[in-house]
């Protein structure tokens, strides 16, 4: 078991209101890996722990299946429709011998992103690329996330059972505080299972940020963290389940998707330049995170009321 000290609890906590006309800070922030904000003010987490997780399913009555996933302030709503016949726009990739999975990720208008964070992530691109795409629009991020989500979910679906039909996955990002890709994958996998769509296995996903040592500040006096050893790799330290501020300070981000029962990695997405030995350690931490997420997913799925007969 990972050192995750997470409990399933509802965690609706609003972000502090933004002052209008405030100057956008481009400066990288210092991160304290032994005492990170967890989404709920009084609880602090260490480098390896996850934020407060809240998972619920069947939250929308009009869709075949739906789910709500929260990782701290990151909130994702997912709905699944289908199987349904192709509409005219989808007939291009339509095939008679197998079904089609269609994924769409959308940011909730005005609510999806923190305005300050938004400007900064746009300058740095998705999950910590430091690149020349400085003005990547929200729409381009949506297209990119949709395609990543499709890549992560598709291996778990036996589409040959759904000939001439399409299963549509709609993901709405209600609030973005980092790790939206893994949260979306978890939400989509849950919603598909909730919809009664046959899936080989649940896909759980997890992100790890690699922070340069120069941006880390340590607090040794904290009693809670006395026994905690952070991932210390000389130049870098690893942070599980990063928030958007942590992603902005990160050198790179590794996102991994796993089908836990099959013990197979179905998805790997990495940004930034990270040395190979750090990547493999980040992969190990991702694996632990995926296992923890899988437990939460399974717990949420199997807690339905007994059928009376």
């Amino acid at each position, binding site marked *: 078991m990972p050192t995750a000290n997470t409990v399933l609890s509802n965690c609706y906590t609003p972000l502090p209101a933004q002052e209008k006309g405030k100057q956008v800070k481009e400066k990288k922030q210092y991160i304290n890996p032994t005492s990170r904000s967890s989404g709920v003010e009084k609880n602090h987490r260490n480098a390896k722990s996850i934020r407060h997780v809240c998972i619920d399913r069947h939250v929308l009555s009009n869709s075949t299946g739906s789910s709500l996933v929260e990782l701290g302030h990151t909130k994702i709503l997912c709905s699944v429709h289908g199987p349904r016949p192709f509409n005219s726009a989808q007939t291009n990739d339509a095939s*008679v011998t197998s079904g089609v999975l269609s994924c769409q990720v959308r940011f909730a208008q005005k609510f999806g992103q923190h305005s300050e964070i938004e400007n900064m992530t746009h300058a740095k691109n998705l999950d910590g690329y430091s690149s020349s795409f400085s003005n990547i629009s929200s729409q381009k991020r949506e297209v990119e996330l949709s395609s990543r989500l499709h890549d992560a979910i598709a291996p778990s679906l036996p589409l040959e059972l759904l000939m*001439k*039909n399409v299963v549509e996955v709609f993901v709405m990002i209600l609030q973005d505080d980092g790790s939206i890709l893994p949260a979306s994958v978890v939400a989509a996998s849950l919603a598909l299972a909730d919809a009664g769509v046959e899936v*080989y*296995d*649940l896909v759980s996903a997890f992100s790890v940020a690699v922070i340069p040592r120069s941006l880390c500040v340590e607090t040794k006096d904290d009693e809670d963290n006395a026994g905690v050893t952070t991932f210390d790799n000389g130049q870098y330290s690893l942070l599980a389940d990063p928030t958007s501020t942590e992603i902005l300070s990160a050198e790179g981000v590794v996102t991994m998707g796993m*089908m836990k029962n*099959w013990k197979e990695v179905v998805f790997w997405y990495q940004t930034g330049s990270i040395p190979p030995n750090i990547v493999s350690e980040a992969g190990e931490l991702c694996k632990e995170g995926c296992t923890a997420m899988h437990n939460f997913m399974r717990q949420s799925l*199997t807690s*339905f009321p007994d059928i009376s007969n």
Partner: protein
Amino acid sequence: MPGQTLFIDGSKVAPGDKLCASKLYNPGKGCYVRGASVYACAVGTVKFTESKDGKGEASVTLEEGRQYASSLVLNVGDKVLAKVNRIQVNMANIEIVAAEGIGTLREHHSGIIRKEDIRVAATEEVNIYDSFRPGDIVWAKVISLGDSRKYILSTAENDLGVIRAVCASSGEIMAPISWKEMQCPKTGVKEPRKCAKPKE
């Protein structure tokens, strides 16, 4: 076979849960085989049924009010209930609303009945206008999955064809009087149709 399964009968399972060895149980609905084990592929309660010849079957029953996505998919040979939308010189465009074994479909699928698939014999002489009219409800059978848009259906069987049609002049529901005609009970007007053999 107690002790041979990883879950007890009736316990709740999630997709990907390993249920039992595939040499002892066959995979039923909601299960699949990978390697030497049977796994669940849906959320529900697991059920192990034993049979006399030694090899039982494992299956997953979904929660109340859920349906398997794959059970809503039409296959070749399925008998469906459809509504005629439009007729053309060589085919009728129809909308599939329900299927035998599935029930009402959540969303309507479109399909066509070609001229040569309407009746069993005399395919050359069949006239679409003498067989279907827009608004008719027909029993038909899926004979091909067709292209990406449409299913191809057939009514070339005795019990397939129009089961409900409205008289053009009076608006009354007509009754079949022969295999190719229907009559209005009010006005006595006869209209040509490809009638389905009425069920006793």
